[in-house]
């Protein structure tokens, strides 16, 4: 019996999806299952994991309350700062920039991604360090300014590091925006600012929410920037996880924190999607 075209189509689809599905299963689903299993286990006396079924790790989450609090504060504040800086850039690129230079300008936004974040953050350590800006300030008579290892340096690093991730989705949604809607708004008597808040901003909200969700989620796991530009004096979930897995080798507790973090991320995503749907007036919005 010959296979029907319908079956054939399905087989082809399955064959095309198989590598990605296998990859996701082996490198995402399986590790996650392992982490969930670990989270209900116990720490072995010499560190690592010992099979057991206990809620002890979850009951102990309070011991990292400060890490959760710092992270849940930093992530949205960082994402918001990114947004404030990114929106005008995206707006300029999508609406104001001459189409002739647009591609070049958009590439410039992406180019930093070609080098490792570590190298770029390290560069900031120099710029903010004693021989960078403070040294230049000394030459005009302002002595002993310390920029590195301050909360300001961390926020700067975060905005710097995550800016492209925020710019791109906003740029895409602004570029898709029908210019005639802006003309229609002006035609109906709306001043530029009213047009922006009444039309442009709401219609670019899917992009904004994608950017905010993306940056927030990544910030929830951020480790390098606070460590290098903040001097490791502020403790985030990322730091807690590194310490638990690589130093004290308390895998079950680390797993419990990781599982909790995943739950928080899913929760944030759901909220962000809901907001985007409401504003865009349609469910045809994909986040992340």
């Amino acid at each position, binding site marked *: 019996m010959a296979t029907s075209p319908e079956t054939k189509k399905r087989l082809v689809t399955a064959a095309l999806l198989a590598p990605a599905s296998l990859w996701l299963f082996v490198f995402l689903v399986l590790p996650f299952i392992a982490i969930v299993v670990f989270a209900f286990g116990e*720490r072995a006396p010499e560190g690592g994991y010992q099979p057991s079924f206990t809620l002890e790790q979850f009951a102990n989450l309070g011991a990292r309350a400060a890490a959760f609090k710092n992270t849940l504060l930093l992530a949205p504040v960082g994402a918001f700062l990114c947004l404030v800086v990114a929106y005008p850039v995206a707006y300029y690129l999508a609406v104001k920039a001459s189409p002739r230079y647009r591609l070049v300008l958009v590439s410039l936004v992406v180019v930093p991604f070609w080098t490792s974040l570590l190298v770029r953050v390290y*560069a900031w*350590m120099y710029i903010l360090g004693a021989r960078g800006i403070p040294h230049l300030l000394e030459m005009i008579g302002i002595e002993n300014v310390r920029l*590195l290892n301050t909360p300001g340096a961390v926020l700067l690093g975060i905005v710097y590091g995550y800016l492209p991730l925020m710019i791109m989705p906003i740029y895409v949604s602004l570029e898709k925006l029908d210019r005639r809607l802006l003309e229609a708004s002006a035609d109906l008597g709306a001043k530029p600012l009213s047009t922006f808040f009444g039309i442009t901003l709401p219609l670019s909200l899917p992009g904004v929410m994608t950017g905010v969700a993306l940056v927030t989620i990544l910030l929830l796991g951020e480790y390098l920037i606070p460590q290098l530009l903040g001097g490791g004096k502020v403790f985030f979930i990322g730091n807690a996880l590194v310490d*638990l897995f690589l130093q004290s080798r308390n895998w079950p507790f680390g797993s419990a924190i990781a599982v909790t973090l995943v739950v928080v991320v899913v929760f944030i995503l759901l909220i962000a999607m809901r907001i985007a749907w409401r504003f865009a007036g349609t469910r045809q919005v994909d986040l992340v």
Partner: protein
Amino acid sequence: MSKDYKDNLPISASGFMDEFMRLKRGSVSRRHFLGITGLGLATAVMTRFPGALSTPAYAAEDLGTQMSIATWPNYHDPATFENFTAATGVAVEVNVFGSNEEMLAKLQAGASGWSLFVPTNYTISTYQKLGLIDELDMSKVPNFSSTTQNTRFTSEGQIDGKTFAVPKNWGTTGFAVNTDKLKTPLKSWKDFFEIAQTEADGRAMVHDYQLTTIGSALVSLGYGFNSIDAGELAKAEELLIKVKPHLYAINSDYQPSMRSTDAWMTMCWTNDGAQLNRDMPEIAYILGTDGGEIWTDFYAIPKDAPNKAAGYALLNYLMDPTNAVKEHIANGAPATDSRVIELLPKEITSNKIVYPDEASLTPLEFGAAVTLTDPARAELMARFKSA
């Protein structure tokens, strides 16, 4: 301002890349930083040609054609392995690690494939307890000479009178001080924590590593480096949390900050202290008169080593002073074997940072296995960092 500002600006592209590559190689902070950034898991294959061409010089036993070793970044003279391969026909695959914890996890997971590895003193008892290493058959390491070894360093390799590991090199954990910036002479960990809150306010660094940070705080209060006594730990916690707002950073990657003079004072390991002092003579390396850490890295052979014969052959090769001396010249860490020290150039052995007086080593303690894995200390560190 008489100097050109460029003299002090290290932001030249080449300078930056040098610094970054140094960081990446892991010579900055003795391996800790590598582990957490994930840069340390790189595997380098030194030589891999089949041994058919060379005739094994001492082939009493079949050594095979290949073995692998787990060690620390930038810790060996690459020529050592090439020479070993030339002599025996065994190609050596080198795996570098970021932390003892990672090394332990990998060996515990099984099938590591190593026939020799380089654990630090405080992990050896754990490896032995978990049955991951065997007692060494010293008859296969004739180049090892117990009489020329400093017993201060060999003892951590002995458990119940049996030798499980032999020393590679040793070092200390003291602190580095920029004497241009800080005029008060510092002698002890007590001084360190006091000055950190006063003259060096906002300019002192401690490790992001509970063993040394909590250990040094305990020492400054007159307690033992390895204490897990709840009352003593509570006192140390109180001190650390009081000092924290005055700290510049909690970070084991302290060389860049010391070099840029952002930080004026830091907890410091021997090799870093020597490097900082070599490049910036105003930075002094000080061992606390009230105590501190001393450490040794050992060679050991995993129980499940796939090529034990080659592992022993390489170990024996490395115990030959003429081979070992090249290793010490390459990595800069002090040697434990007097035969090696005799072969070292004078400018190395006369460096008081690398080879301090015996007397200054007396108050120092080896880190203990229980200290490293104690959950109470881990939680204390987390509270300190999140305070």
